[in-house]
């Protein structure tokens, strides 16, 4: 069987999870729709199922996993650059280099 490009984990979700690396311009089909991928995105990362606005709750597994900090177009990569935790900061290697 071929691996699907993306998966919709819950009908309420506004993000899709990449089941394999996806390419910009690819039409990524999932159960319930299709979205044009706006950037090359790696396995396990998220793309927007629909357009999102700053402050929108990001839903995965049908539950909020944070909120958008930027306008996000459908098919765009959703990650640290355009969403944040509703609880507590994440740290990255880039941050630790800047601070040291």
């Amino acid at each position: 069987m071929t691996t699907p490009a993306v998966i919709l984990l819950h009908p309420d979700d506004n993000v899709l999870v990449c089941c394999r690396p996806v390419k910009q311009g690819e039409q990524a089909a999932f159960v319930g729709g299709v979205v044009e991928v706006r950037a090359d995105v790696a396995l396990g990362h998220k793309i927007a199922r629909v357009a999102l606005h700053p402050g929108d709750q990001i839903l995965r597994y049908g539950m909020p996993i944070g909120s958008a900090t930027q306008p996000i177009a459908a098919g765009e990569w959703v990650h640290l650059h355009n969403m944040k935790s509703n609880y507590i900061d994440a740290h990255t290697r880039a941050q630790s280099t800047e601070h040291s």
Partner: protein
Amino acid sequence: MSMLGFLRPDGRKGIRNVVIVAYLVECAHHVARRIVDLTDDPDVQLVGFPGCYPNDYALRMMQALGTHPNVGGVVLVSLGCEGFKREALAAHIAATGRPVETIVIQQNGGTRSTIKRGREVVETVKAAAKRQAQPTAVEWSDLTIGTICGGSDGMSGITANPAAGRAFDRFVEAGATCIFEETGEMIGCEGPMAVRAPTPEVATALIECVHKAERYYRVMGFGSFAPGNAEGGLTTQEEKSAGAYAKSGTSPILGVIKPAELPPSKGLYLLDVVPDGEPRFGFPNISDNAEIVELIACGCQVILFTTGRGSVVGSAISPVVKICSNSPTYHALSEDMDVNAGRIIEGEASLDDVAGEIVELVRRVADGEATQSEALGHREFILTYKSFEMAGPGCLPRL
């Protein structure tokens, strides 16, 4: 479905017959390590505590580890002047009928002499542990199984963690005891978790320990979230939490236990790994092995370790089963991985298929088969300062 293990004099049943050599301060670490290295027996394993100042948590942990069902005998290596209560530790272990010997470097003529003496003592304890270990049939109800995730990625919560959760459901149904942990990785899941509590008191305890974790991590400045998690597609603590929580399966959560406490019944428990009181000694768990050791101190004879980025660790005392969340990592690190849950996303296996594979592998491991990390010689161990109040009656089920 039979499994063969070892009956201890205190009635507990182990699936390994390990002799631990424990240094009681960093100053005794080298001598203890040399004793273990020169003995060159996979079942003689190094553990220890580096601090010079006494710590109740560290003592309780070492007492629990020294009397673990997988442990048949103990050799304590002391420098001599450190604060660890070595007599209390030795007495606690001896009370369970296990052979235990203490060697003190300052009373044995120094490094070389103590290593030599230590090797002789290890052979004596090994022989005693071997004589004492009665081969015995092990049932699922004799097993305590822990689960942890490390190096999680965006696939972990879809494949490896829910597969481990379904395996947990089957273990609980078969009468085993199961423990999941890392309350810092339950942040955001406290509501759904509380619904699974058998009493309002346990529900409150579940919510409280997650709130405590959130306060603690906030003081530390970061959540339980490593750069590799973000590189693997996870963006926030609560996203990681939702995936991590799936490891617990769907059984009722009977109570909250603290490190080195044994679950008071069969069934599923949450281990609260975040210290009580004001933050004092730094990050709650400085790496995955700190949590693995705490699960083992709660009696776990086997650990299920789910990973996305690809952890390679094992542990002293209890075997670690690696369940990989995605096929690229599984193939890149195939020599370290036991189960490929990535097949779920490729449509080659269902969650239930992989859960069945995990259950069967745990049965074989409990029967003596080595896991990949075990065969590779991984015997990681870390124990640092912490402070805990023991779980109150409200945290435990009414039995």
